[in-house]
Protein backbone atom coordinates (compact mmCIF):
# COMPACT_ATOMS: atom_id res chain seq x y z
CA UNK A 1 0.00 0.00 0.00
CA UNK A 2 2.81 2.41 1.00
CA UNK A 3 4.66 1.58 -2.22
CA UNK A 4 1.52 2.32 -4.22
CA UNK A 5 1.10 5.68 -2.50
CA UNK A 6 4.76 6.52 -3.12
CA UNK A 7 4.36 5.68 -6.82
CA UNK A 8 1.22 7.81 -7.05
CA UNK A 9 2.95 10.73 -5.30
CA UNK A 10 5.87 10.60 -7.75
CA UNK A 11 3.44 10.52 -10.68
CA UNK A 12 1.48 13.52 -9.36
CA UNK A 13 4.72 15.40 -8.69
CA UNK A 14 5.78 14.84 -12.31
CA UNK A 15 2.42 16.02 -13.62
CA UNK A 16 2.48 19.21 -11.54
CA UNK A 17 6.10 19.92 -12.49
CA UNK A 18 5.11 19.74 -16.16
CA UNK A 19 2.10 22.02 -15.57
CA UNK A 20 4.29 24.65 -13.93
CA UNK A 21 6.80 24.48 -16.77
CA UNK A 22 4.02 25.08 -19.30
CA UNK A 23 2.78 28.13 -17.36
CA UNK A 24 6.25 29.70 -17.47
CA UNK A 25 6.69 29.29 -21.19
CA UNK A 26 3.36 30.90 -21.98
CA UNK A 27 3.08 33.68 -19.41
CA UNK A 28 6.54 34.94 -18.60
CA UNK A 29 7.73 35.60 -22.08
CA UNK A 30 8.95 38.96 -23.22
CA UNK A 31 9.04 40.31 -26.69
CA UNK A 32 12.83 40.55 -26.75
CA UNK A 33 14.34 43.39 -28.76
CA UNK A 34 11.56 43.55 -31.36
CA UNK A 35 9.57 46.75 -31.48
CA UNK A 36 5.95 45.95 -30.79
CA UNK A 37 3.56 46.83 -33.61
CA UNK A 38 -0.03 47.90 -33.17
CA UNK A 39 -2.72 46.39 -35.40
CA UNK A 40 -2.81 49.65 -37.39
CA UNK A 41 0.97 49.56 -37.98
CA UNK A 42 0.86 45.86 -38.83
CA UNK A 43 -1.47 46.45 -41.78
CA UNK A 44 1.00 48.94 -43.24
CA UNK A 45 4.24 47.02 -42.82
CA UNK A 46 3.04 43.43 -43.30
CA UNK A 47 3.87 43.18 -47.04
CA UNK A 48 7.49 44.12 -46.33
CA UNK A 49 8.21 41.67 -43.52
CA UNK A 50 6.72 38.37 -44.68
CA UNK A 51 8.34 35.31 -43.05
CA UNK A 52 10.13 37.52 -40.56
CA UNK A 53 9.79 37.66 -36.83
CA UNK A 54 7.32 40.25 -35.64
CA UNK A 55 5.80 41.40 -32.39
CA UNK A 56 2.27 42.74 -32.25
CA UNK A 57 -0.12 43.89 -29.56
CA UNK A 58 -3.88 44.28 -29.44
CA UNK A 59 -7.13 43.34 -27.79
CA UNK A 60 -8.40 39.80 -28.34
CA UNK A 61 -11.83 40.08 -29.95
CA UNK A 62 -12.46 36.43 -30.70
CA UNK A 63 -10.96 33.02 -30.01
CA UNK A 64 -11.90 30.10 -32.26
CA UNK A 65 -14.43 27.99 -30.34
CA UNK A 66 -13.51 24.73 -32.06
CA UNK A 67 -10.03 23.82 -30.95
CA UNK A 68 -8.71 27.32 -30.12
CA UNK A 69 -6.33 27.33 -33.06
CA UNK A 70 -6.89 30.98 -33.96
CA UNK A 71 -7.65 34.25 -32.31
CA UNK A 72 -8.16 37.77 -33.61
CA UNK A 73 -6.80 41.00 -32.19
CA UNK A 74 -7.79 44.58 -32.89
CA UNK A 75 -6.40 48.01 -32.10
CA UNK A 76 -7.89 51.08 -30.44
CA UNK A 77 -8.41 53.12 -33.58
CA UNK A 78 -9.33 50.51 -36.16
CA UNK A 79 -12.06 48.01 -36.85
CA UNK A 80 -9.55 45.78 -38.64
CA UNK A 81 -8.33 42.60 -37.02
CA UNK A 82 -5.19 40.50 -37.29
CA UNK A 83 -5.37 36.74 -37.15
CA UNK A 84 -3.03 34.96 -34.77
CA UNK A 85 -2.53 31.22 -35.06
CA UNK A 86 -1.00 28.75 -32.65
CA UNK A 87 2.59 27.66 -33.14
CA UNK A 88 5.19 25.20 -31.99
CA UNK A 89 5.13 26.39 -28.35
CA UNK A 90 1.43 27.11 -27.95
CA UNK A 91 -0.97 24.43 -29.05
CA UNK A 92 -4.25 26.09 -28.12
CA UNK A 93 -5.68 29.50 -27.23
CA UNK A 94 -8.05 29.66 -24.29
CA UNK A 95 -11.40 31.38 -24.84
CA UNK A 96 -10.72 33.22 -21.57
CA UNK A 97 -8.25 35.37 -23.55
CA UNK A 98 -11.17 37.22 -25.16
CA UNK A 99 -11.09 40.84 -24.04
CA UNK A 100 -7.46 40.69 -22.89
CA UNK A 101 -4.72 42.90 -24.28
CA UNK A 102 -1.97 40.59 -25.46
CA UNK A 103 1.43 40.81 -27.11
CA UNK A 104 2.38 38.11 -29.55
CA UNK A 105 5.83 37.39 -30.89
CA UNK A 106 5.72 35.23 -33.97
CA UNK A 107 6.39 34.77 -37.66
CA UNK A 108 4.44 36.87 -40.13
CA UNK A 109 2.87 34.61 -42.75
CA UNK A 110 1.31 35.42 -46.09
CA UNK A 111 -1.26 33.54 -48.13
CA UNK A 112 -1.61 34.71 -51.73
CA UNK A 113 -5.20 34.41 -52.87
CA UNK A 114 -5.36 34.46 -56.65
CA UNK A 115 -7.56 32.87 -59.31
CA UNK A 116 -5.59 29.59 -59.24
CA UNK A 117 -6.11 29.36 -55.51
CA UNK A 118 -9.82 30.11 -55.76
CA UNK A 119 -10.37 27.73 -58.71
CA UNK A 120 -8.73 24.84 -56.86
CA UNK A 121 -10.71 25.61 -53.74
CA UNK A 122 -13.94 25.84 -55.74
CA UNK A 123 -13.25 22.50 -57.39
CA UNK A 124 -12.67 20.88 -54.00
CA UNK A 125 -15.92 22.29 -52.66
CA UNK A 126 -17.90 21.13 -55.72
CA UNK A 127 -16.35 17.68 -55.59
CA UNK A 128 -16.98 17.50 -51.88
CA UNK A 129 -13.33 16.80 -51.15
CA UNK A 130 -12.55 20.13 -49.57
CA UNK A 131 -12.62 18.77 -46.07
CA UNK A 132 -9.80 18.89 -43.59
CA UNK A 133 -6.95 16.58 -44.37
CA UNK A 134 -7.26 16.69 -48.15
CA UNK A 135 -4.00 17.63 -49.86
CA UNK A 136 -5.00 21.04 -51.15
CA UNK A 137 -7.24 21.78 -48.22
CA UNK A 138 -4.38 21.27 -45.79
CA UNK A 139 -2.81 24.47 -47.09
CA UNK A 140 -6.07 26.38 -47.32
CA UNK A 141 -7.58 25.28 -44.09
CA UNK A 142 -7.03 28.38 -41.99
CA UNK A 143 -8.26 30.75 -44.62
CA UNK A 144 -11.23 28.71 -45.64
CA UNK A 145 -12.41 28.44 -42.07
CA UNK A 146 -12.13 32.17 -41.60
CA UNK A 147 -13.99 32.86 -44.83
CA UNK A 148 -16.63 30.23 -44.13
CA UNK A 149 -17.31 31.89 -40.79
CA UNK A 150 -17.67 35.23 -42.54
CA UNK A 151 -20.10 33.79 -45.05
CA UNK A 152 -22.05 31.77 -42.51
CA UNK A 153 -20.54 28.48 -43.56
CA UNK A 154 -21.04 28.77 -47.34
CA UNK A 155 -17.60 28.36 -48.94
CA UNK A 156 -18.91 29.12 -52.45
CA UNK A 157 -20.19 32.50 -51.25
CA UNK A 158 -16.78 33.12 -49.65
CA UNK A 159 -15.05 32.29 -52.93
CA UNK A 160 -17.31 34.67 -54.84
CA UNK A 161 -16.78 37.49 -52.39
CA UNK A 162 -13.01 36.99 -52.65
CA UNK A 163 -13.26 37.13 -56.47
CA UNK A 164 -15.21 40.39 -56.15
CA UNK A 165 -12.60 41.73 -53.78
CA UNK A 166 -9.76 40.87 -56.18
CA UNK A 167 -11.62 42.54 -59.07
CA UNK A 168 -12.19 45.67 -56.98
CA UNK A 169 -8.57 45.80 -55.84
CA UNK A 170 -7.20 46.25 -59.37
CA UNK A 171 -4.56 43.59 -58.66
CA UNK A 172 -4.47 39.92 -59.63
CA UNK A 173 -4.43 38.68 -56.07
CA UNK A 174 -5.16 39.42 -52.44
CA UNK A 175 -2.75 38.82 -49.62
CA UNK A 176 -3.85 37.43 -46.31
CA UNK A 177 -1.39 38.14 -43.52
CA UNK A 178 -1.33 36.54 -40.12
CA UNK A 179 1.06 35.79 -37.29
CA UNK A 180 2.08 32.30 -36.20
CA UNK A 181 2.78 32.47 -32.49
CA UNK A 182 6.13 31.83 -30.88
CA UNK A 183 5.34 33.53 -27.58
CA UNK A 184 2.23 35.08 -26.12
CA UNK A 185 2.08 37.51 -23.20
CA UNK A 186 -1.10 38.65 -21.54
CA UNK A 187 -0.68 42.36 -20.70
CA UNK A 188 -4.04 42.97 -19.01
Amino acid at each position, binding site marked *: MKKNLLGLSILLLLVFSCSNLKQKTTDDNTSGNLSVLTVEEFQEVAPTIVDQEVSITG*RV*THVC*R*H*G*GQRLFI*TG*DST*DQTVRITTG*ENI*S*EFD*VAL*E*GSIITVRGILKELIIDETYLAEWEMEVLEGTGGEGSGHQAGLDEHQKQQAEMEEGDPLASIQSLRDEIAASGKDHLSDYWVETIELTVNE
Partner: protein
Amino acid sequence: MNLRKWIRIIHRDAGYIFFGMSVIYGLSGIALNHIDDWNPNYIIRTKQIIIDRPPQPESISEKWIIIFLNDLDRELQYRNHYFPQDNLLKIFLKQGSLTINLASGNGVLETIKRRPIFREVNFLHYNKPKKLWTWFADLFAVALILLAITGLFMIKGKKGITGRGAWLTSLGIVIPLLFLIIYLW
Protein backbone atom coordinates in the same frame (compact mmCIF):
# COMPACT_ATOMS: atom_id res chain seq x y z
CA MET B 1 6.27 -21.31 -22.11
CA ASN B 2 4.26 -21.73 -25.28
CA LEU B 3 3.43 -18.94 -27.76
CA ARG B 4 -0.24 -18.70 -26.78
CA LYS B 5 0.70 -18.03 -23.19
CA TRP B 6 2.93 -15.15 -24.29
CA ILE B 7 0.13 -13.82 -26.45
CA ARG B 8 -2.23 -13.84 -23.47
CA ILE B 9 0.35 -12.11 -21.24
CA ILE B 10 1.04 -9.39 -23.83
CA HIS B 11 -2.69 -8.88 -24.46
CA ARG B 12 -3.49 -8.72 -20.75
CA ASP B 13 -0.71 -6.34 -19.72
CA ALA B 14 -0.99 -4.05 -22.75
CA GLY B 15 -4.73 -3.97 -22.03
CA TYR B 16 -4.08 -2.85 -18.47
CA ILE B 17 -1.48 -0.24 -19.44
CA PHE B 18 -3.54 1.27 -22.22
CA PHE B 19 -6.97 1.05 -20.60
CA GLY B 20 -6.90 4.80 -19.87
CA MET B 21 -5.72 5.67 -23.37
CA SER B 22 -8.44 3.52 -24.95
CA VAL B 23 -11.11 5.37 -22.98
CA ILE B 24 -9.54 8.77 -23.82
CA TYR B 25 -9.36 8.05 -27.56
CA GLY B 26 -12.77 6.36 -27.59
CA LEU B 27 -14.52 9.30 -25.93
CA SER B 28 -12.79 11.92 -28.05
CA GLY B 29 -13.44 9.79 -31.14
CA ILE B 30 -17.18 10.05 -30.50
CA ALA B 31 -16.81 13.79 -29.91
CA LEU B 32 -14.87 14.29 -33.14
CA ASN B 33 -17.31 12.18 -35.18
CA HIS B 34 -19.99 14.71 -34.27
CA ILE B 35 -17.86 17.85 -34.44
CA ASP B 36 -20.36 19.53 -36.81
CA ASP B 37 -23.21 19.03 -34.38
CA TRP B 38 -21.73 20.31 -31.15
CA ASN B 39 -18.74 21.94 -29.53
CA PRO B 40 -16.95 19.33 -27.44
CA ASN B 41 -14.67 21.91 -25.80
CA TYR B 42 -17.14 24.53 -24.59
CA ILE B 43 -20.76 24.81 -23.55
CA ILE B 44 -21.90 27.98 -25.32
CA ARG B 45 -25.28 29.56 -24.67
CA THR B 46 -26.66 32.65 -26.39
CA LYS B 47 -29.54 34.80 -25.24
CA GLN B 48 -31.15 37.73 -27.02
CA ILE B 49 -31.70 40.84 -24.94
CA ILE B 50 -33.45 44.13 -25.72
CA ILE B 51 -32.70 47.49 -24.14
CA ASP B 52 -35.65 49.88 -24.28
CA ARG B 53 -33.72 53.12 -24.36
CA PRO B 54 -30.09 52.38 -25.24
CA PRO B 55 -27.68 55.11 -24.18
CA GLN B 56 -25.42 57.10 -26.50
CA PRO B 57 -21.93 55.58 -26.89
CA GLU B 58 -20.35 58.71 -25.36
CA SER B 59 -22.28 58.28 -22.13
CA ILE B 60 -21.21 54.67 -21.58
CA SER B 61 -18.70 54.16 -18.81
CA GLU B 62 -17.42 51.19 -16.87
CA LYS B 63 -19.65 52.23 -13.97
CA TRP B 64 -22.75 52.31 -16.21
CA ILE B 65 -21.93 48.88 -17.59
CA ILE B 66 -21.46 47.34 -14.14
CA ILE B 67 -24.84 48.69 -12.98
CA PHE B 68 -26.44 47.52 -16.24
CA LEU B 69 -24.98 44.03 -15.87
CA ASN B 70 -26.11 43.87 -12.27
CA ASP B 71 -29.67 44.62 -13.37
CA LEU B 72 -29.47 42.08 -16.17
CA ASP B 73 -28.02 39.21 -14.18
CA ARG B 74 -26.19 39.46 -10.86
CA GLU B 75 -23.92 36.56 -11.81
CA LEU B 76 -22.33 38.44 -14.73
CA GLN B 77 -18.88 39.80 -13.95
CA TYR B 78 -17.43 42.67 -15.95
CA ARG B 79 -13.90 42.43 -17.41
CA ASN B 80 -13.65 45.25 -19.94
CA HIS B 81 -15.35 46.69 -23.00
CA TYR B 82 -14.74 48.38 -26.34
CA PHE B 83 -16.62 49.66 -29.38
CA PRO B 84 -15.95 47.54 -32.50
CA GLN B 85 -18.09 50.03 -34.44
CA ASP B 86 -19.57 53.42 -33.54
CA ASN B 87 -22.88 52.01 -32.40
CA LEU B 88 -21.72 48.60 -31.29
CA LEU B 89 -20.67 47.90 -27.71
CA LYS B 90 -18.87 44.71 -26.82
CA ILE B 91 -18.58 43.90 -23.14
CA PHE B 92 -16.23 41.13 -22.12
CA LEU B 93 -17.35 39.17 -19.10
CA LYS B 94 -15.75 36.50 -16.96
CA GLN B 95 -18.52 34.23 -18.27
CA GLY B 96 -18.37 35.26 -21.96
CA SER B 97 -19.42 38.45 -23.70
CA LEU B 98 -22.33 40.75 -24.38
CA THR B 99 -22.68 42.60 -27.68
CA ILE B 100 -25.19 45.45 -27.86
CA ASN B 101 -26.28 47.40 -30.92
CA LEU B 102 -26.77 50.86 -29.43
CA ALA B 103 -28.90 52.03 -32.35
CA SER B 104 -31.52 49.29 -32.14
CA GLY B 105 -31.10 48.24 -28.51
CA ASN B 106 -30.74 44.59 -29.52
CA GLY B 107 -28.07 42.58 -27.79
CA VAL B 108 -26.68 39.07 -27.61
CA LEU B 109 -25.39 37.58 -24.41
CA GLU B 110 -23.01 34.69 -24.98
CA THR B 111 -21.93 32.64 -22.00
CA ILE B 112 -19.15 30.11 -22.29
CA LYS B 113 -18.19 27.31 -19.95
CA ARG B 114 -15.49 24.72 -20.41
CA ARG B 115 -17.03 21.34 -21.10
CA PRO B 116 -15.48 18.96 -18.59
CA ILE B 117 -13.86 15.68 -19.69
CA PHE B 118 -14.36 16.16 -23.44
CA ARG B 119 -12.14 19.23 -23.52
CA GLU B 120 -9.37 17.27 -21.83
CA VAL B 121 -9.68 14.11 -23.94
CA ASN B 122 -9.78 16.15 -27.16
CA PHE B 123 -6.72 18.07 -26.06
CA LEU B 124 -4.88 14.75 -25.87
CA HIS B 125 -6.44 13.21 -29.00
CA TYR B 126 -5.41 16.23 -31.09
CA ASN B 127 -1.87 15.79 -29.74
CA LYS B 128 -1.80 19.33 -28.41
CA PRO B 129 0.76 18.62 -25.68
CA LYS B 130 3.13 17.46 -28.51
CA LYS B 131 6.67 16.45 -27.46
CA LEU B 132 6.60 13.45 -25.09
CA TRP B 133 2.90 12.92 -25.63
CA THR B 134 3.58 12.15 -29.30
CA TRP B 135 5.79 9.25 -28.22
CA PHE B 136 3.27 7.90 -25.75
CA ALA B 137 0.41 8.24 -28.27
CA ASP B 138 2.54 6.45 -30.91
CA LEU B 139 3.25 3.72 -28.40
CA PHE B 140 -0.48 3.41 -27.80
CA ALA B 141 -1.12 3.17 -31.56
CA VAL B 142 1.42 0.35 -31.86
CA ALA B 143 -0.04 -1.31 -28.77
CA LEU B 144 -3.52 -1.16 -30.33
CA ILE B 145 -2.23 -3.10 -33.34
CA LEU B 146 -0.55 -5.54 -31.00
CA LEU B 147 -3.73 -5.88 -28.94
CA ALA B 148 -5.72 -6.54 -32.09
CA ILE B 149 -3.33 -9.20 -33.35
CA THR B 150 -2.89 -10.94 -30.01
CA GLY B 151 -6.65 -10.76 -29.49
CA LEU B 152 -7.12 -13.03 -32.50
CA PHE B 153 -5.16 -15.83 -30.92
CA MET B 154 -6.31 -15.66 -27.31
CA ILE B 155 -8.36 -18.84 -27.42
CA LYS B 156 -8.42 -22.04 -29.40
CA GLY B 157 -11.32 -24.06 -30.71
CA LYS B 158 -14.76 -23.29 -32.11
CA LYS B 159 -14.88 -19.81 -30.64
CA GLY B 160 -11.31 -19.03 -31.70
CA ILE B 161 -9.93 -17.57 -34.91
CA THR B 162 -10.57 -20.80 -36.79
CA GLY B 163 -14.29 -20.75 -35.97
CA ARG B 164 -16.59 -17.98 -34.80
CA GLY B 165 -13.60 -15.61 -34.55
CA ALA B 166 -12.96 -15.89 -38.28
CA TRP B 167 -16.50 -14.77 -39.12
CA LEU B 168 -16.51 -11.86 -36.71
CA THR B 169 -13.03 -10.74 -37.76
CA SER B 170 -14.07 -10.87 -41.42
CA LEU B 171 -17.16 -8.82 -40.65
CA GLY B 172 -15.01 -6.19 -38.94
CA ILE B 173 -12.81 -5.96 -42.04
CA VAL B 174 -15.64 -6.05 -44.59
CA ILE B 175 -17.60 -3.16 -43.02
CA PRO B 176 -14.86 -0.52 -43.45
CA LEU B 177 -14.06 -1.97 -46.89
CA LEU B 178 -17.68 -1.50 -47.93
CA PHE B 179 -17.58 2.15 -46.89
CA LEU B 180 -14.37 2.64 -48.85
CA ILE B 181 -15.92 1.04 -51.93
CA ILE B 182 -19.08 3.14 -51.66
CA TYR B 183 -17.58 6.51 -50.68
CA LEU B 184 -13.97 6.57 -51.81
CA TRP B 185 -12.97 4.10 -54.50
